[in-house]
């Protein structure tokens, strides 16, 4: 009862392992993908991505991207993804600053505000 979980960023493959479930911060709400999930493609909002496996749970901070879910695999393509152990306050600050820069360039203020709020919520969730 496992799915193949891949997390790739443009520069490298961050994780590739078997997982029993993957919790994904989807743009329209969190979802958990397990074996036999209906094929879905969803965009991500900034948040926390968890891959639960028999030998432990891996947690990542993602700031956006999308996930492709099939019955047997979950591929997450994130532009920025950081393992939670490496998420120092300074790194989080730089992620926030990046999002803020990106938000400044868009006209859709509501969407930008939501992204910032999501990012702050993710930060609180890991206790920073």
């Amino acid at each position, binding site marked *: 009862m496992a799915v193949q979980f891949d997390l790739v960023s443009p*520069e490298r493959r961050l994780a590739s392992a078997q997982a029993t479930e993957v919790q994904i911060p989807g743009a329209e709400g969190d979802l958990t993908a397990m074996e036999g999930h209906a*094929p879905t*493609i969803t965009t991500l909002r900034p948040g926390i991505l968890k891959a639960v496996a028999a030998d432990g749970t891996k947690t990542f901070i993602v700031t956006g991207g999308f996930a492709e879910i*099939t019955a047997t695999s979950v591929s997450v*393509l994130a532009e920025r993804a950081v393992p939670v152990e490496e998420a120092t306050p300074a790194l989080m600050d730089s992620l926030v600053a990046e999002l803020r820069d990106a938000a400044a360039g868009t006209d859709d203020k509501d969407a930008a505000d939501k992204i910032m709020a999501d990012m702050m919520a993710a930060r609180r969730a890991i206790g920073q």
Partner: protein
Amino acid sequence: MPSLKDLKNKIASVKNTRKITKAMQMVSAAKLRRAQEAAEAARPYAERMNAVMAGLSASVGTSASAPRLLAGTDKDQVHLLVVMTAERGLCGGFNSTIARLARVKANELLAQGKTVKILTVGKKGREQLRRDLEANMVGHVDLTDVKRVGYANAQGIAREVLTRFEAGEFDVATIFYNRFQSVISQVPTAQQIIPAKFEGATTSALYDYEPSEEAILADLLPRGVATQIFTALLENGASEQGARMSAMDNATRNAGDMIKKYTTIYNRSRQAAITKELIEIISGAEAL
């Protein structure tokens, strides 16, 4: 006939050159390995991205609400050529092959009465194209200070291209770079990025889309542009090191040949001088 001293100096100087080219070759061999690894590491993301976008664009592409990045502006009057070259020379024909391809394309478009705008990445390409296409240049991205090309660099270029597109500055964008095949072969490539084109667009499994297909596509297309630029930058990086490696290998071998040739001449004229002196001594002795 150069003097012995001149020949000696010449040999010493070519020996120094050989040392330098040999060192450069080894440096680029190491850099090539790193560049290839980077290109390899970036492949899964680019492949997935392409597959998903190809699937999406196959289903959305025909509808009237398709995003402009995919459908285009219904015109192809103004072309933006993004010419990516290296920041340094001494890498064989690497920079000139890209510049030549871009120049041919630009002239072709100009002959058809289209407007051509050129954005250069890397100063070598700018220098070469400035000679005859200076009036068409609209911008330049400097990567001189960048030691290792990262996704952030690609994003910067993509942002510049997308801003210009949104401002209506051009209709079609094409990137020019060298695709890496092997150390001795790099293929100059032109690739259209706006409007997006996908090869092998097959609608595979039926996916649920969250939010809608259009919303996902609109979100993905700008990322797709950045990904394509990033892939091109990495290919270019590997090609540059490969080209430099084989150019420097050639230079080292040429220097070796040259040293051999000059050493032969040097020995021969040294022997000639000795023989001449001997003859002078002997004939002087006989005259007594």
